[in-house]
């Protein structure tokens, strides 16, 4: 006998749970790709206060 018997609801909702899992995984991947696309774009620059502490703006220089 299995140590933890699977509850009936897990079997019943298996397809729904797999579907939601796949969608959440896809969402995480999309946010990663979106972040990558944003920070490598020409117009991206790190805000001055966070860049080097003395107010000078740093550009990632992806296209420069």
């Amino acid at each position, binding site marked *: 006998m299995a140590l933890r018997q699977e509850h009936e609801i897990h079997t019943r909702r298996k*397809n729904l749970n797999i579907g939601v899992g796949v969608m959440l995984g896809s969402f995480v991947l999309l946010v990663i790709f*979106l972040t990558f696309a944003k920070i490598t*774009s020409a117009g991206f620059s790190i805000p001055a206060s966070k860049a080097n502490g003395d107010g000078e703006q740093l550009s990632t220089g992806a296209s420069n």
Partner: protein
Amino acid sequence: VTDVTNAQSYDAEPQLGDYYALMKPRVMQLVVFTAVVGMLAAPVSVNPVVGFASILFLAIGAGASGALNMWWDADIDAVMKRTVNRPIPAGKVTAQSAMYLGVALSGLAVMMLSLSANLLAGFMLAFTIFFYVVPYTMWLKRSTPQNIVIGGAAGAFPPVIGWVIATGDFALAPWLMFALIFMWTPPHFWALALFMRNDYDDAKIPMLTVTHGRRVTRNHILAYTVLLAVLAVGTAFSAIGGWVYLVTAVVLNALFLKGAYAIWQRDEEICEVDDFAAERKFFRLSLWYLFAHFVAILIEAGLKPFGLGGW
């Protein structure tokens, strides 16, 4: 509003497809298509990943407003043939689940669109969802025969949002696309109301056919189609127009005007004989009409890099 759901039993477990159906996939297709055209017709190019994500979040927002619409309208959906198989009246999903899904996805879509594109696009999506759910669904749909005209405005925003995703700003051109959908919606739905006549009567929705009669509806279809033709052909001479669009608009508006004139000439006796053949034909044509106009705008935008699109 949601009494209908209490009478249903929810023995069957809702599947992913049932939740997807709550989001009105066909409306989402139209939203995605017109928004993509709006985005690509803009004079600013968009990073493909940013464009894809933004259109996806816009589609999710549109789907969320569809779920909220189904939550609120569950009682009337249950009495109309056209909508009786929707997930809530069919007993597949509870009205409460639809409401939670709609609210959660609305918030997610607006937040993510603001981050992926810009704040203005996010704000416009929030306004569109609000406009569709509160003034249209909750208030005007059941209180005025101009419901379709007002509802049409909500469906007309996607190309403007698509343009704003690309540019972060407004211009005249996206509002011409807005006007095209806005003016197209009433004749499209009134033609449907003419041949789905018992549905709206049963649901006690004050469609023009119910409140002012079928003769007045036919007059309105013709009047809106004439105004739409002027607008659609006039758009050919704007920043998004060109030869391809002009030819498309002239041909389709001639056909559309012919169809509206045929509807205007008919009375109920003739319609009974041929089972609303002209009205059904006009409705089918209306689907092609909108699709072809937006494809023409897309072609004009696609030709511009080669120095061919526009004037």
